[in-house]
């Protein structure tokens, strides 16, 4: 099933004049890169905003004022867990629940 962001050019005539990219990188589900994943421990979360601030992959969303991980894109770098002052995020093995 093609991704909603996928763009395909059938022939050279369909291409733009030169390599002009109009598509979104959302087509690349970088969550598949993970070997470790962040797990939220919301009981400890003080909504300080630090995890959202420091995510290089823009994969921490704010939902109902709390952080929520977008696992489609999170690469599991661990910055959020390392920076959280309240142990509200821990890194676990990708395959674990």
């Amino acid at each position, binding site marked *: 099933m093609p991704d909603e962001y996928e763009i395909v050019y059938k022939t050279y005539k369909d291409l*733009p004049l030169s390599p002009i990219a109009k598509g979104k990188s959302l087509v690349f589900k*970088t969550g598949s890169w993970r070997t470790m994943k962040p797990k939220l421990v919301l009981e400890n979360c003080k909504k300080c*905003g630090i995890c959202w601030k420091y995510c290089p992959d823009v994969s921490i969303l704010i939902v109902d004022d709390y952080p929520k991980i977008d696992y489609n894109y999170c690469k599991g*770098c661990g*910055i959020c867990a*390392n920076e959280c002052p309240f142990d509200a995020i821990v890194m676990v093995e990708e395959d674990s629940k």
Partner: protein
Amino acid sequence: MKITLPEDEIMEKGHMACLGCGGALAMRYLLKALGRKTMVAIPACCWAVIPGVFPYSCLEVPLQYVAFEATGAAISGIEAALKAKGKKEGTTVVGWAGDGGTLDIGIQALSGAVERGHDVKYVCYDNEAYMNTGIQRSSATPKGAWTTTTPVGNTRFWKKTNKKNIVEIMAAHDIPYTCTASVAYPEDLIKKAKKMKDIKGPCYMHIYAPCPTGWKYPPEKTIELSRLATETCIFPIYEVTYGKYKLNKNIRDEKKKPVLEYLKTQGRFRKLDEETVQSIQHYVDDEWIKLKKKVECFGEEK
């Protein structure tokens, strides 16, 4: 939730940066500050591949990929064209390059662009080597660092010279605004980027952007490492506004951490000997004293 940065995400997810990339964070912060009316020119560097392959891009601003040494010339051309078309007002022109494209191959075009006084903003994200081509040394590589062209071996073949001080070179061009910033302090970075946006004239920003892949440290430590770089005074956070120096993060003597604390966190400094660590400490101490003297002599009037 406590949000201390502008919320609009102009850099999207799904990009190709390594885990924990300082350069990705730097771009995310810069675009939050400058907004969507920004045109960017990017030369050969990690950021030439981070947005993804054709026909996809992670940046929601108009972007031109340019040849390696051409960033300064590209932004000059963009600015001139916008002026010619009467579209310059309200649009920020940014040259976004790595340390190679800024300090080495791109220095001529950068110097030319700022000397001519174009209303452009040049931002260098410094990961201290030619990372995109595989971690070769650049003039921004610090002394003692392992790179693939200074691979230490058993003949102490690390980088022998200190980092080229491009920030002072830019300040010496007498441009309206020069500054350093770090991914550890995004509020400061964003405040400075907004200041650059409001100034009509060439501005330069040097962002400290750690690279887990090239510096050999675990990716989760990127922000911790950036803080340590400033706390050891290896990467001071300061700005020069119309020739006036200001220290944004003053590290008091009693709080100043020894450089060894910074060096031992990264694999690229693993084989350093005592002598070199001492020379690095002396160098950092001297540069810090020089900077504080400049702030004293050329600081803002109290």
